[in-house]
């Protein structure tokens, strides 16, 4: 499949639960399973899109990758080196290679610092002399499309939302990282500004040979930017695969529901009925078995009993889906290898 040398980031069994305390003695009464047993790889030079509803664990995953939150368990390997493990790469070193662009361009810039010192801060932390860090800051400002002379001495409140997000990107670039996690970088921006920032991201990626993890709830944006897409639901990966395969032939019922809810310019593809009803179940004490079965139209008894693993059902591509309907012998009536007639879902696939 993928040669080990191609893999930049290898995430295995990432897990993070948040305890909920309550009662008289503030004992732990429940846990939020924010990220539960998430594994994936990011290949050199690609863009991996991560999509899902709000609260599905996208941002927690990003913060776990950056080690901004402690991992409960799981391993992260960056370019063959285990992070935060004996003999591996230190968290500090990881953060030089892996940077993050935050969603809220207001709160992610220090209101008391000039643009120059905000961008130069990262390099100076890693021992770059001040003059050199400042020079680098001006350099990068030019790269993100802002005239250095006009911006170095300004403060965040004097800039527009799009300009601030460019500064955010510049700050991440200042450490010359190889991989950038973009956590909903354009969702707070106007549509016109959004397009400019997205194009900037595409240009920067080719110019600087970057790799992206692009987190968004906007499926159009993810489709535009990504090479592969990872779909999350309540802290779990439900589907991961190449972007064309997922958008053309989604395998998981949740992915199908998401995609059919996507606003489209094509009148023939518009739907009248919302495919997903109800809110996602509470991530505190999620449902047993497949977490999606409470909202799934194809749910059967087996779905509530056991959790489906990620399964590669399309042999030619590395397209993995966690659904009982696709796993032979899972006990679901639609699963391949059973004698039952194809379910409505299967027919829909064939179309």
């Amino acid at each position: 499949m993928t040669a080990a040398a191609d893999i930049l980031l290898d995430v295995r069994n990432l897990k993070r639960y948040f305890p909920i305390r309550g009662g008289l003695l503030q004992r732990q009464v429940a846990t939020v399973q924010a990220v539960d047993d998430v594994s994936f790889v990011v290949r050199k030079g690609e863009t991996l899109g991560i999509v899902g509803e709000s609260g599905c664990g996208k941002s927690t995953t990003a913060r776990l990758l950056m080690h901004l939150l402690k991992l409960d368990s799981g391993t992260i390997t960056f370019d063959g080196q285990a992070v935060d493990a004996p003999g591996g790469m230190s968290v500090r070193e990881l953060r030089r290679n892996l940077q993050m662009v935050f969603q809220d361009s207001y709160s992610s810039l220090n209101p008391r610092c000039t643009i120059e010192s905000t961008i130069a801060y990262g390099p100076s932390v890693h021992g770059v002399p001040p003059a050199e860090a400042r020079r680098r800051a001006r350099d990068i400002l030019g790269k993100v499309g802002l005239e250095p002379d006009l911006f170095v001495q300004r403060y965040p409140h004097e800039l527009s939302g799009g300009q601030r997000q460019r500064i955010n990107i510049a700050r991440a670039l200042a450490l010359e990282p190889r991989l950038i996690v973009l956590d909903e970088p354009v969702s707070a921006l106007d549509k016109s500004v959004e397009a400019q920032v997205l194009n900037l991201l595409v240009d920067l990626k080719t110019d600087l040979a970057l790799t992206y993890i692009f987190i968004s709830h906007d499926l159009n944006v993810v489709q535009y930017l990504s090479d592969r897409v990872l779909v999350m639901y309540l802290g779990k990966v439900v589907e991961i695969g190449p972007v064309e395969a997922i958008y053309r032939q989604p395998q998981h019922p949740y992915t199908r529901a998401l995609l059919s809810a996507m606003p489209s310019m094509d009148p023939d593809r518009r739907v009248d009925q919302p495919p997903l009803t109800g809110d996602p179940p509470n991530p505190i004490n999620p449902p047993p078995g497949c977490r999606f079965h409470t909202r799934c139209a194809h749910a059967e008894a087996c779905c509530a009993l056991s959790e489906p693993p990620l399964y590669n059902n399309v042999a030619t591509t590395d397209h993995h889906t966690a659904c009982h309907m696709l796993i032979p012998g899972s006990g679901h009536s639609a699963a391949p290898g059973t004698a039952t007639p194809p379910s409505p879902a299967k027919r829909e696939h064939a179309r």
Partner: protein
Amino acid sequence: MSDQSPIAVLPEIDALKRAVAGKSYWRRVGEQLLRDRLTLSVMLLLSVIIIMVLAAPLFATHDPTVGSVLKRLKSPGYPGHWLGTDEVGRDLWSRILYAGRYSLLCGVLPVLLALLIGGVLGLSAGYFGGTTNSIIMRSMDVLYAFPSILLAVAICGMLGSGIGNTILALTITFIPPLVRISETVTTQVRAFEFVEAARASGARPLSIMHFHILNNVLGPILVYATSLISISIILAAGLSFLGLGVTPPDTEWGLMLNNLRQAIWVNPLVAALPGAMIFITSMCFNLMSDGLRGAMDVRM
């Protein structure tokens, strides 16, 4: 306009550059303060008081320790003693100046010390959270269980009077409120994504506190500390008034009040003077705190 010499254009470029250079938060606060006439005049009055008190030998008309039995408790306007004399005939004006040194010292120094200790504790509690926060804040809750006057009186009462013990007692008294305010604002600032971004850049906690937390929390903490100075001046004088603070032959506004307590039946006006000084100074710090708060409220 091709005949314009390059030199004539220069000022315009300068103006452009000035427009391009942004205004820092502190500069805006400064500009706001300059527009606030009340606060400016309060600060002027305060500096006059501080200068006159520090340079007491220059402004004093008499030796503050030497009195004359013949000229006891004279009213303001008495020849040679424009502010009158105290219960043993010492010049009141000179004594008020010299006493001010200790009043200001005991009023300002404890707050500064408490600001240093309480600020570090509160910043750590707010930044690190968790167990660190619990340990620091719960021990402060214990000190909070004493009304501030009681705590200061208790410490001074147990340790004995004297300027050192007064400063120690007041410092301990003002640590809990400063820890609490620093913790609150630090916790607020820490929730902003720019702190997370700084962590993501690989910076160490001390560097983040220095570059990203401190300049965002300093304003509210300083405003609060300024208002504490006004309380501190009243409390310090109060301790001396009880005989727990500065001891003779040194003097202090509160101690002067104490000495003049009996004189109130003879010459009420003279007895009231040192208290007026405590009131004016304390009021100045209060007004200054209000003015600073207003100036720092500029929207960013």
